[in-house]
């Protein structure tokens, strides 16, 4: 019934993001990664303000993991730049690694170690002195709610627990930026909710989080900004609410009439909604059978935006602002 996939989207094409309201921790400019003739990441720009949760949404092969690998100093871009706290991962590798905690899409763990030994190992890998290991590891296990699994073998942990342990590993050196590639992948609903709570808690602690997912509702719940990515390009960027508004799908009401017809009407607020209903009931010759709000979820938005871009209607859609209501750091 939804017309999201077919309506024309009044998006605002821009060449580069607008200045963020807070200083950016991560800046990407014309970032490109080619594998032969394939552009895995194609000339993307984005800024991630400090303390924000920035979500990258896209299907498999969209270029999310490649983008993350470049930010995390694993891959050399073909062209363009990315900086983390003004450090370039290509030239200031160690400075970047001190500031970045990276959790890849496939969490690999040493199954033969205990949870505590696993974190000690990475504490040593981040050159943390042995005397600091125990309080650090205990604190991290407490944070990710694995304190009771301290001496359990990693192999014996559930996937959700391994995911949280991996997150603790990425936090072991207290990084400013957390890069989480598909952290909720393969988790059951309870584990997803727990992970979401944990991410919000980390954001409250001041961490900047760059997260990807192809389950869009997950990101809408936690992200202050999102970028919709497909085919290596960012097609829309901004706060979820702003993207929804820009696509003119923020609030719609679907009305069914007794003659069997249905129509959707945009409504911006409660007043227009009331006016619309009054007009339909009084003026419209058809009798109203029922009406219901049409919720433009992110998946619908994603489909709409990428379909529109594929159809060549717009080149890039970008809304570079932070929605204070969705930003967990707003007002802190």
């Amino acid at each position, binding site marked *: 019934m939804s017309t999201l996939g077919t309506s024309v989207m009044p998006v605002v094409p821009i060449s580069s993001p607008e200045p963020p309201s807070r200083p950016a921790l991560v800046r990407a400019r014309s970032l490109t990664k080619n*594998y032969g003739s394939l552009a895995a990441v194609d000339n993307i720009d984005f800024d991630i303000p400090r303390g924000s949760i920035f979500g990258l949404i896209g299907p498999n092969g969209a270029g999310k993991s490649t983008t993350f*690998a*470049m930010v*995390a*100093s*694993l*891959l*050399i871009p073909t062209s363009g730049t990315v900086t983390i706290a003004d450090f370039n*991962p*290509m030239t200031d*590798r*160690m400075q970047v*690694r*001190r500031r*970045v905690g*990276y959790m*890849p899409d*496939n*969490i*690999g*763990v*040493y199954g*033969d*170690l205990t949870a505590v*030994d696993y974190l*000690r*190992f*990475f504490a*040593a*890998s*981040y*050159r943390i*002195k*042995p*005397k600091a290991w125990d309080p650090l590891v205990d604190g991290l296990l407490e944070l990710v709610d694995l304190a009771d699994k301290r001496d359990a073998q990693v192999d014996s942990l559930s996937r959700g627990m391994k995911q949280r342990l991996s997150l603790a*590993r990425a936090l072991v*050196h207290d990084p400013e930026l957390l890069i989480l590639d598909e952290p909720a992948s393969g988790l059951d609903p309870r584990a997803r909710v727990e992970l979401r709570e944990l991410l919000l808690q980390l954001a409250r602690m001041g961490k900047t989080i760059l997260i990807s997912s192809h389950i869009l509702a997950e990101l809408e719940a936690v992200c202050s900004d999102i970028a919709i990515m497909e085919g290596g390009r960012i097609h829309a960027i901004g706060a979820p609410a702003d993207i929804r508004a820009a696509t003119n799908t923020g609030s719609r009401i679907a009305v069914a009439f007794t003659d069997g017809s249905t129509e959707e009407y945009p409504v911006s607020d409660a007043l227009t909604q009331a006016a619309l209903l009054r007009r339909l009931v009084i003026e419209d010759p058809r009798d109203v059978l029922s009406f219901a709000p049409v919720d433009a979820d992110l998946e619908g938005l994603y489909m709409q935006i990428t379909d529109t871009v594929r159809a060549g209607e717009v080149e890039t859609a970008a809304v570079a602002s932070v929605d204070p209501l969705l930003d967990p750091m707003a007002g802190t």
Partner: protein
Amino acid sequence: MSIVDAVAWRNPVLHRELKQRASTPRMMLVITLYLVVLTAVVFALYQARTGDRTGSFGQPGVTEIASIGQSLFEYVLFFMVILVLFIVPGFTASSIAGERERQTLRALQVSLLSPRSIVFGKVGASVAATVLLLVASLPLLAVAYLIGGITFGEIFISLGVVLFAAFGLACITVACSAIVKRVSGAILLAYGIVLLLVGGTFVGYAVLQEVDASRGSDLAQPPSWVMAANPLAAVADVSQRSVSDQTDDDQFGEFGPFGPSFGNSQVESPLSAVRDLMQPKFPQNGFGFNDGPFPVPIPVGIDEFGNVIQDNRGGNDQGASDDGDRVPFIAEFFILFTALSVTGLAIAIWRVRTPARTER
């Protein structure tokens, strides 16, 4: 800071690998199996030698006892080399490829560990496990030492060569592990290289020898560097020094590591078989050689009357004035294996280093 913590902090990869190996029963099983086999071989050999060759009073003579000690020594050394050839690639091939398969490599690469620390940790753990095996077999070398015929220095030098070979193989294998993405592929490549270093060089040497002989050379012996990447040949070389007369500085002289006859005909071992295999071939059979310390005429051909033409420079390098600058075979081995080791380490470090153009 405890020693364990110090190791864990200095090189967490090495610490983790050592801990992981120590916590699984596989290592204990390997050591036990290896020692059982080696002990059985040594015992059987001792029984056979003391039973077959006895002196005039029904007991082995002094020379005979020395020969038994030398044989035992060479047998144990041979098994050590075989162990190194089999175990080191097995221990090391999964080092980097295993991290990749487990999907833990990227977490290491984004840490503050340098690629060098990661690779050295892997190689160090592999060599440490091999050292453990070699140390476990020391009591058997001690038996040979107690029987006689070898010195502590000879044991020390031979073990040094075995350890160096283990280190070199670990460096080569860690490169295989860094290049090939799958552990199975890395294992295949590593054993392929070992086969090439051991079997390939033997075959190559034999082919060159045949080519030499077919060209009518008086003394068909390819250059020794053909064998310089062969750990078995290197150990055969150093152990030969102990079982031959020790008054000679360079045992091989103009004939290289496998010069004609070694004056140790009583020492029977796989390593002496290796040396025999690499003996220079002459156009006709029937020449007996003596590689002892004293100049012995070397037959270099046959004149038109059927008489043997002899070269009086001797069976060894005594008097071989034109060979004064010749690099000893063991030095060739060290040079070549060092080059291979450094190359292996460099490749592995390069493959682990990030950021890179492609995902590693």
